[in-house]
């Protein structure tokens, strides 16, 4: 499902060159739940951004869902992200001026799904994370755990093949973190969704199928 070969990422300024990722090779088959761990600044988020097509590698190849995406242009990448990928972020990234259900509908808006169909799919996604009764609330009326569940509903509403989660439990206490983790493992086991999760939490990483460790931008063997 996800194939990375000899991926490097180097950030250059006039005076300094920083290697964020160094020769990463990664293969994640469909239905796998992979966690990525490592100290701050080791390149975890950069790797996740490259898998999520939010960033480009300096060199190497990226193959997602059987498609080599390296040559894709902006519009094609946007459409690919919309159909194949779902994102969950540590800081939720909910739009404060939109209600819960409108936040969840967002990916479908860019897929040009009709409004009735959009509402139906958003309601189903919210029901699957146990928040159907909070549909018309606004993000500032929710707890951290609830916000993350809304973000999960938004990530799954378009039935993506892959979910990319960047420290999804990082801002939550252990109880809420476990709740979120349960939803993610449920998605993986019930829907066979491929999940790549960046985390700092060993306990959360233990719940995944496979763990990849990074240190200074390189894979720890």
């Amino acid at each position: 499902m996800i194939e990375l070969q000899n991926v490097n990422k180097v950030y250059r300024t006039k005076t300094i060159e920083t290697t964020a990722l160094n020769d990463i090779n990664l293969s994640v088959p469909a239905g796998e739940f992979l966690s990525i761990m490592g100290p701050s600044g080791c390149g975890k988020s950069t790797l996740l951004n490259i898998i999520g097509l939010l960033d480009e590698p300096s060199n190497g190849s990226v193959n997602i869902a059987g498609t080599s995406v390296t040559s894709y242009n902006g519009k094609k990448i946007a459409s690919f992200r919309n159909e194949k990928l779902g994102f969950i972020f540590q800081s939720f990234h909910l739009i404060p001026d939109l209600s819960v259900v409108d936040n969840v509908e967002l990916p479908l808006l860019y897929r040009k799904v009709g409004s009735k169909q959009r509402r139906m799919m958003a309601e189903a996604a919210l029901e699957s994370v146990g928040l159907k009764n909070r549909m018309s609330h606004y993000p500032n009326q929710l707890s951290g755990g609830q916000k993350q569940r809304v973000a999960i509903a938004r990530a799954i509403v378009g039935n993506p093949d892959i979910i990319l989660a960047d420290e999804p439990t990082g801002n939550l206490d252990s109880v809420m973190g476990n709740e979120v983790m349960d939803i993610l493992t449920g998605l993986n086991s019930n829907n066979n969704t491929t999940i790549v999760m960046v985390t700092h939490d060993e306990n959360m990483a233990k719940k995944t199928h496979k763990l990849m460790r990074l240190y200074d931008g390189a894979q720890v063997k």
Partner: protein
Amino acid sequence: MIKHIFKLIWNKKGANFLVLLEIFLAFLVLFAVLSFVFYNLDRLSNPLGFEIENRKYVLFGDLEEMDSLTRVQSLDLMKRSLEDLDLVEQVAFSNDVRPFGGSNYCHGNDDMGYHIEACYGVVDHNFIETNGMNIIAGRGFLEEDVTAAFEPIIPNKHFMDEFYPGQDMIDSIIQFQGEKQIIGVIEAYKYNGEFEESDNRALLLDRSEDDYVLTTAFLKLDPSADISFEEEISNTVQSVLKTSSFVIQDAPLLSKRANLETWIPMVALLSICAFLCINIALGLFGVLSYSISKRKGEVGLRRAIGASGSSIIQQFTMEIVLLASLAILAGILFAAQVPILDLIDVEDNIFYRGIIYAAIIILVVVTLCALYPSIQASRIHPATALHED
């Protein structure tokens, strides 16, 4: 997408209110100024009705104090003396109602059940030709009209269209300060200047038995006559009148001065409007740039879930354009009351044009101001935006 953007605007109504109010007020100011400008430009496009190039006017001061016989003799001598000058082509006389003179004689009375009203000038039989006036029906005054059975009158087209629309009234007798015979129709006579609104005007012929005093001479000069020729005119007039109580005026200069009285406020108001538009543009530009910098995370998120760069430009531009459209709509509701309720006695289409052009200008300014920050937003790297938020 439009419904989504309306939702965003509505949910941020508190923050958007001041922008909405600013655009609403700007629309009303622009509407008022543009209506004023259109009103004046419409007046300017109507014919003046007489020539001003190579024309000079001589205003006499002491004629009213003369007895009528002396006055007639003086004017006759004056006419012949002026005509004798090499560069004078034609000479005519009128009463105080002269181009750019600021005097008005107006009269109204009933005629066959209609109330007719017009301002008029009293002239001699050379007046129309000397001033290059355009006769659109009938004829001008002749010397023998002075002794005709009926006093002749030459109204303008506006007068005929208002009181006798579609009728051939040449040689008809009408009531206007007694019985008058219409012998011709002139195209126009906007003696207060090019910006004067077309109104009912008429020319009456001076007949010595009337009480009118001809106080102005009109000279049509050869194009080669320059400013130094005024001295010859002055010497001639002085030798006839034996007094220096007269003024020589240059018609193009008078016209220029009269026009400036309208152009100056018009240009001043348009400058204020341009300044207002620049202020709005800069204000909106600042607000949008700040708002987009505060919404970097949202931009990153939208890019992550499938928005292309053009979708981002479209969304942010549409947000402000829709907001401006709401403000303009509110403005139109107010502005449209002026023509609907006939609050000002001016043609309705001037106000409707004011509304349309004000709306277009505001929308263009707003769109241009929104485009640059929106393009900047579309260039935000999604990974950076998501990380920064």
